[in-house]
């Protein structure tokens, strides 16, 4: 574990140095990343130019959900977002290079082509979250304040687990990297809207099957003092760290199974 983190850190530092060699390009791609991720919020603003509320939530509350979802996902995307390139490495055989290096493969794949430009997404999410915090009406208690960073970190870890699980799936289906987008980008889009908007089955699915609801819906319901989706008990708002650990364990198992089943193309 410590060895893996060290390797990850070294490779990331290398990519950052390489990115910083072309500063203008870095600034442009980061601005581009920022603008591209802003589109989602522009859609929400356009909707609110015509309505007062969506699913019973006003704009500041939706901005709160949006900010939490985007920052949590943005951190995961920044940390290991390049993992969706794994299928390509399997296909062209360059994964073999990583296998013979004396560092954990997961750390190498996670740090591969580390994209500092993805700070654009984190920044955009943080700005919306900042806007939400200044406008939304929350009855702050010490517990709620404490829950905020816990929620963001747990959410980021849950999304990291989804990235790792998706990468493990690419060992089996190399060309199917787009499937992963449905759960990563699709997941963060889903969480940007309140749970009251979606069908019961969908909410059940992202609570009990793929536990994305623990990224923001459940803890944010506690902070906002809103009724919980699916009438879940109050304590689930504090369960995201546990859920995140569980997700990591499952993703780790999937990763090991995937890596074991890997057969090189031989080219």
């Amino acid at each position, binding site marked *: 574990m410590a060895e893996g983190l060290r390797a990850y850190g070294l490779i990331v530092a290398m990519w950052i140095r390489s990115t910083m060699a072309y500063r203008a390009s870095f600034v*442009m*791609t980061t601005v*581009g990343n920022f*603008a*591209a991720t802003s*589109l989602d919020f*522009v*859609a929400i603003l*356009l*909707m609110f*130019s*015509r*309505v*007062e*509320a*969506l*699913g019973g939530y006003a704009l500041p509350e939706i901005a709160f959900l949006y900010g939490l979802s985007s920052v949590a996902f943005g951190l995961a995307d920044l940390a290991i977002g390049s993992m969706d390139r794994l299928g390509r490495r399997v296909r062209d055989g360059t994964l073999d290079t990583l296998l013979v290096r004396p560092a954990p493969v997961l750390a190498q794949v996670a740090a591969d082509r580390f994209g500092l430009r993805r700070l654009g997404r984190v920044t955009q999410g943080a700005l919306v979250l900042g806007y939400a915090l200044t406008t939304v009406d929350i009855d702050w208690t010490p517990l709620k304040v404490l829950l905020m960073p816990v929620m963001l970190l747990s959410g980021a870890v849950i999304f990291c687990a989804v990235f790792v699980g998706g990468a493990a799936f690419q060992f089996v*289906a*190399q*060309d*199917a*990297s*787009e*499937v992963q*987008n*449905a*759960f990563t980008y*699709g997941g963060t*889009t*889903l969480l940007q*809207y309140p749970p*009251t*908007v*979606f*069908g019961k089955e*969908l909410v059940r699915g992202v609570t009990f099957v793929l536990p994305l609801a623990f990224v923001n819906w459940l803890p944010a319901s506690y902070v906002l003092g809103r009724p919980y989706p699916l009438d879940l008990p109050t304590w689930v708002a504090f369960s995201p760290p546990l859920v995140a650990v569980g997700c990591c364990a499952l993703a780790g198992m999937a990763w090991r199974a995937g890596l074991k089943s890997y057969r090189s193309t031989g080219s």
Partner: protein
Amino acid sequence: MGTGRLYVAVAVGGFRRYATYRVATVAGVFTNTVFGLILVYTYLALWEERPQLGGYDQAQAVTYVWLGQALLSTLAIGGGGFEDELIERIRTGDVAIDLYRPADLQLWWLASDLGRALFQLLGRGVVPFAFGALVFDVALPSDPVTWAGFLLAVLFGMVVGFGIRYLVALSAFWLMDGTGVVQMAWLLGFFCSGMLLPLNVFPGLLGEIVRVLPWSSLLQAPADVLLGRADPLGTFAFQGVWAVALLAAGRLVQSAATRRVVQGG
């Protein structure tokens, strides 16, 4: 070989090239369906608050979502058309070889992109649309003439989409690196084509502006023909004017660009 048959062969090649990646196609269908599912619920919530928003009822809004998912890759609104390849050929200089060929550069890429678009329509468009139509209440016409009009509007949309992306790709003759322009074009296209939200939902003046820009030919125009919200002939005329204007602009830029190739050796 007649000139017409040459371009048909290029289009068939474009179609078959994309048809090769079956697993990727299935993956794309899955992702489009999931995104459609998420968007449908947000649209339903929006139309719950404001019934008849933008002149659509709920069933029409739902149909619009699934049309968007069906046409996203067909019209390359989210990228993924020929432009990345042409930019790479311009950057590496391989485009000089293309210019020596006894075929017109613009028509060659148009044929190849139409082949691609046709495959994406069948391979990636039909299934998410059918899923949406089966699971949700949608507003589909029973009149085959309306369907034919819709398909014609999609074809016009393909040509307009090509016209825009061809200009974007040619910018690489001057800029060498097309990444920034491609990204800007992608953002604009996503916003102005109605992919983000139907253009008739856009407020006031902004709505009026986006509706006359060429991007509205991509998704909004075919959707309004299918939903019976627009006069088909007027729509074709609008799309046709933009298609001709963009292709002509592409010609002009192309001749300016190829002169540069000769000068640069």
